[in-house]
């Protein structure tokens, strides 16, 4: 939709050319050696890896186009792609500031906020899985370990983990093994997925190599992530930036398939554009949005893996109507571009602040977009063919069987109102912000119980204890 078939084909050919000619720098001897023995050309001295055409095509052939992200509660499993052509939302990760409902200014994120975040996500029917924000009130060396522990204790959904250091990675995986029921069970039902990021342009740093190796060893799905900042780390022209993201994702797909053929990889292109006045990087600008849509389409159609990008969020430094507007625009464009996972729910200030109210709103907007996308077959029933033939010229459809049978097909909003003004006043439902606050309070006051057993909880605490001992 955002690229023609011929354009996708042309970019695919260029990506193959790039992988073969220019290649990527991999700053990790172990990974370099593994790639070399799997058939890539890798030079130990320059650390440059290149992938020939047939190697790439073989890798794309074995990279799965469908698989499942398992949830702590199997009812929340996420088969990819979404069975009815929709998508899954996912929350922000890594934000450092938290805006309490009614609060004036965002404040540093605490460990308790992670619990709240997970509790809220549990009730968000369109948010498939949860990441954790960046907690300030714990030793920073184990901030990710502490956050993951809290998340596992409060979530019944799949968890997405963004490790902060290679030292903490080991403990994060240990926790996944504990919560997921051991190595074999975790491989069958991966309740956790990991992010691995390129250092744009065209470089892979040691930590991400470690993540890739560990994920492939344990069968943990990876979100192969590229975050180009157009004008800074990638060409300023949106399609140039799309290309950078796509080839970096391609490199990660190929590396994963060489390490573990059939390994589940999600192409994750998070597109930023640098503001040429301030130098800040943004994801809500039209250039970044177009790039996000094109990157999704390119990765999906050319490489055949599920896709993931920001499908919410705003660059506004304050939570206001700009935040809600930009988030809804992002959701619309990315959903229509066909992304399988819409990330960033609840975030503003370009991924650095989160708001529970925005999370609830994003969930609603995602529901709306899913309904828009639902479509379905075009047959006589969908057309109402017989009813049209039967109805009198100038007649009504309201009383027909067809309307009766389909009247519940529509999406019902939980937050928006379409009341007549006096009805709305009479119900005393307040404005959208007040309704968001009411929904927030309702969820927080009635949290779902813990899903993991006390034994598992204790074993997780033990892992945190080990991490604390070793790293702080």
């Amino acid at each position, binding site marked *: 939709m955002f690229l023609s078939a011929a354009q996708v084909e042309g970019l695919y050919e260029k990506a193959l050319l790039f992988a073969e000619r220019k290649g990527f720098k991999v700053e990790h001897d172990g990974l370099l050696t593994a790639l070399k023995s799997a058939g890539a050309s890798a030079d130990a001295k320059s650390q440059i890896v290149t992938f020939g055409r047939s190697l790439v095509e073989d890798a794309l052939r074995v990279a799965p186009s469908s698989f499942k992200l398992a949830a702590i509660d199997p009812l929340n499993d996420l088969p990819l792609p979404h069975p009815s052509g929709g998508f899954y939302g996912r929350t922000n990760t890594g934000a450092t500031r938290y805006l309490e409902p009614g609060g004036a200014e965002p404040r*540093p994120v605490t460990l308790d906020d992670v619990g709240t975040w997970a509790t809220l996500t549990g009730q968000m029917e369109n948010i498939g899985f949860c990441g954790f924000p960046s907690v300030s009130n714990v030793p920073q060396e184990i901030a990710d370990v502490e956050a993951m522990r809290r998340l596992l204790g409060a979530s019944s959904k799949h968890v997405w983990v963004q490790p902060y250091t290679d030292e903490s990675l080991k403990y994060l995986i240990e926790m996944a093994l504990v919560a997921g029921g051991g190595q074999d069970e975790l491989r069958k039902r991966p309740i956790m997925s990991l992010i691995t990021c390129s250092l744009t342009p065209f470089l892979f740093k040691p930590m991400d190599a470690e993540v890739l190796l560990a994920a492939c060893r344990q069968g943990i799905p990876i979100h192969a992530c590229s975050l180009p900042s157009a004008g*800074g780390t990638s060409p300023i022209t949106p399609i140039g930036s799309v290309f950078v993201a796509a080839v970096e994702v391609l490199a990660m797909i190929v590396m994963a398939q060489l390490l573990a053929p059939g390994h589940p990889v999600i192409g994750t292109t998070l597109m930023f554009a640098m503001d040429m006045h301030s130098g800040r990087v943004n994801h809500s600008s039209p250039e970044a949005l177009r790039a996000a849509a094109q990157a999704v389409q390119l990765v999906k159609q050319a490489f055949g893996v599920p896709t993931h990008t920001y499908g919410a969020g705003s660059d506004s430094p304050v939570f206001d109507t700009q935040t809600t507007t930009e988030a809804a625009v992002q959701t619309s464009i990315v959903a229509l571009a066909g992304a399988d996972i819409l990330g960033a729910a609840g975030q503003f200030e370009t991924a650095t602040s989160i708001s529970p109210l925005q999370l609830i709103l994003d969930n609603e907007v995602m529901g709306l977009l899913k309904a828009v996308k639902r479509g379905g077959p075009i047959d006589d029933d969908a057309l109402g063919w017989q009813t049209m033939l039967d109805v009198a010229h100038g007649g009504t459809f309201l009383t027909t069987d067809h309307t009766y049978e389909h009247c519940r097909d529509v999406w019902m909003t939980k937050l928006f109102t379409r009341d007549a003004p006096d009805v709305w006043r009479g119900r005393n439902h307040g404005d959208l912000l007040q309704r968001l606050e009411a929904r927030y309070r309702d969820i927080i006051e009635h949290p779902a119980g813990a899903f993991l057993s006390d034994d598992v909880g204790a074993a997780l605490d033990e892992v945190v204890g080990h991490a604390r001992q070793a790293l702080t």
Partner: protein
Amino acid sequence: MSPYDDLKLNVETGKRDAVQAQVKQALDEGRPAQEILQEGLVAAMDVVGAKMEAEEMFIPEVLRAAKTMEAGLEILKPLLAVGDMRISGTVLVGTVKGDLHDIGKNLVAMLLSSAGFEVKDLGINVEPATFVEKVKETGADFLGMSALLTTTMPMMQATVDALEAAGLRQQVTVLIGGAPVTQAFADQIGADGYASDAGAAIKVAKELGAVAK
């Protein structure tokens, strides 16, 4: 009308060849190198600085103007005394240990150098001990540290402490920045200044100035 209006416009719009030709021509006409520098090149960059602040110029345009100015300066350099050269101070910049984010740090480095600072970039993942060693080695006026992760911000404190322990803290103006960094954090760790973006970094560096040595 200044005789340098054309030259200034050419610096501003990044016309390297024209600027070099005009600088040569001014010298041929017998104008003093110091005057060409101050009333031509430096004056042009002052306009550029003001236009950047007013959001009339984009960052790549500012960087191009600075490069163009340098091309003109190259011709004047042999004719200028050391004291004539406009150097606002020397700055060491780097991203702290454990942190690989460098987009913001690079931008700060580029814009500081376009504003007349001499900048030495220590790169990413810089250990406190390396910062200390380089401050000692270079006698830099400013140390600019960048951190983009809450998990690496403590390294700024560690570096300030290490400077203190090495007896160098009083000799260098410490500036910090990066998305999670705030003025309050700068106060807390005893940094001299904080800036929220590269434009502000120039301002703060100029306001604070180098420590008198």
